[in-house]
């Protein structure tokens, strides 16, 4: 697929308490593509996504073995700096969760954590990222209004801008459009397609049509295992495995 994977997962096992959530996951995520993780509810899609930026660390009774290499660096190495790993990835959750501050401060939050940017630099950065997510014209007159005043679709784009502001390499989306109306969904999907020129994008979705619209590759996960991984059209139109076939046809969900 590619000689230079952006994220390389090797024999990853995740269990919470006595439940094995992910079993022996090995996969290479190609650089600057959109990859969708599909599969039925509770199959471990979100856990797999969260293992990429170590958001599972705080889950009670969690046990993680195996390796996740990002740019060749094992993020579960005890010496790895967790804030540095997370900075490389922007996360877009199911519902938008703007930070309890103004629109401007939401975008500026990340850059302020990682340095002491000057006012001029920040202004420029906020404008750039809000433009990148198509929000600038809608909010430029009320940058200092609370982020919660925005519509939910605008909030999700703000969360994307906030994530982009720390200059990540990867965008992780966890069913990021499931709370949005069709128009906002389509705006976010277009953004993903546009953004893959600069970023590797990994999306969890349970909407097959969405996976088909936006992704270059699809990973099908079932009961904590990767069943099939391949280019979108190939996997959807000509699945190799019986389980994938059944899922794509809608017999299992």
């Amino acid at each position, binding site marked *: 697929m590619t000689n230079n994977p952006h994220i390389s997962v090797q024999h990853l096992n995740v269990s919470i308490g006595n439940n094995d959530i992910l079993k022996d996951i090995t996969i290479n995520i190609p650089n600057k593509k959109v990859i969708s993780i599909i599969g039925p509810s509770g199959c471990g899609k979100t856990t797999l996504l969260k293992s990429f*930026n170590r*958001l599972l660390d*705080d889950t*009670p009774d969690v046990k993680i073995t195996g390796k996740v290499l990002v740019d060749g660096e094992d993020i579960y190495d005890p010496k790895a700096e967790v*804030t*540095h790993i*997370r*900075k490389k*990835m*922007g*996360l877009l*959750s*199911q*519902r938008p*969760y*703007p*930070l*309890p*501050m*103004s629109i401007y401060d939401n975008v500026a*939050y*990340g850059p302020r*954590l*990682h340095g002491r940017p000057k006012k001029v630099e920040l202004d420029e950065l906020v404008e750039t990222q809000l433009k990148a997510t198509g929000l600038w014209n809608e909010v430029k007159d009320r940058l200092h209004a*609370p*982020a*919660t005043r925005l519509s939910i679709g605008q909030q999700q784009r703000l*969360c994307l801008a*906030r*994530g982009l502001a*720390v200059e990540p390499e990867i965008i*992780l989306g966890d069913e990021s459009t499931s709370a949005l109306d069709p128009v906002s969904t389509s705006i976010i999907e277009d953004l993903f397609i546009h953004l893959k020129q600069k970023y590797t994008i990994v999306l969890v979705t349970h909407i097959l049509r969405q996976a088909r619209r936006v992704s270059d590759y699809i990973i099908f996960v079932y009961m904590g295992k990767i069943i099939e991984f391949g280019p979108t059209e190939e996997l959807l139109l000509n699945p190799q495995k019986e389980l994938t076939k059944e899922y794509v046809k809608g017999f299992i969900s």
Partner: protein
Amino acid sequence: MTRRKLEENFFRVLMLLSIIIVAGSFFLIVGTIFIKGVPFMNLDMITKIPGGGFYIGKEGGVLNAIIGSLYVAGGATILGLLISIPVAIYINMYLGSRNVVANSLRIAFDVLFGIPSIVYGAFGFLIMVYFGIKASLLGGIVAVTLLVIPILVRTLDEVILTVPKELRDASLALGATRWEMSKVVLRQIRPGIFTAILLSFGRAIGDVASVLFTAGFSDNIPTSLHQPAATLPLAIFFQLGSPVEEVQGRAYASALILTIVVLIITVLSSWLAKRFSKNKIQ
């Protein structure tokens, strides 16, 4: 009428009766204080300290107790917050919500919550004897701080538990450290902090037993932490015990003042809570 309808009506009447009892007692209490206190209410009560012979019905007021109470309750709430916020943050953000140590601490604070205030008073008194401190504003503040810490910690704890995990993740995903993430959580719970302040202040200003031995009583307004301080509940207690009718009446006037102070704090803190909730996500 069917059995189900009967049951429905029975419980509805029961609920209404309970509400009448609660609301009725509230109005009776406020009404009594008002009727008995207003005739003895005058500007002197809130602007003057007790003059010579105040306790046999001559001139003066309870300004010493008003200021003393504000000092004690305010000081204890501020000191309590400085201790409780780090505790609540550590329990929730560093130990995790289902951690054994965190849950043991919660139980410990629940036990402390239920301890009668006289025990805090006695404990505070022991500490003071040990350090050779006399009954003073400082002693009162320390004892009342012990009293309000469990209230503050448990209130803040409950409020922090309502913060969506996704908000914490959002901050962490941007590369925030735990403390930086905690600051976002603190921003989110600002309205809840004012609720905690209100509960703490209300308990602190109304408590007699914890200040009985520790703060002492004085007819003067304390000018340093080492001077004894009068408090409103104690002032009410002393005046109510007097055989002089004038003095008894002033006890009700003092109770009215105490109630008004609490009312002002309540209105103020809910106004502040509302003001600071504009950025809060739902």
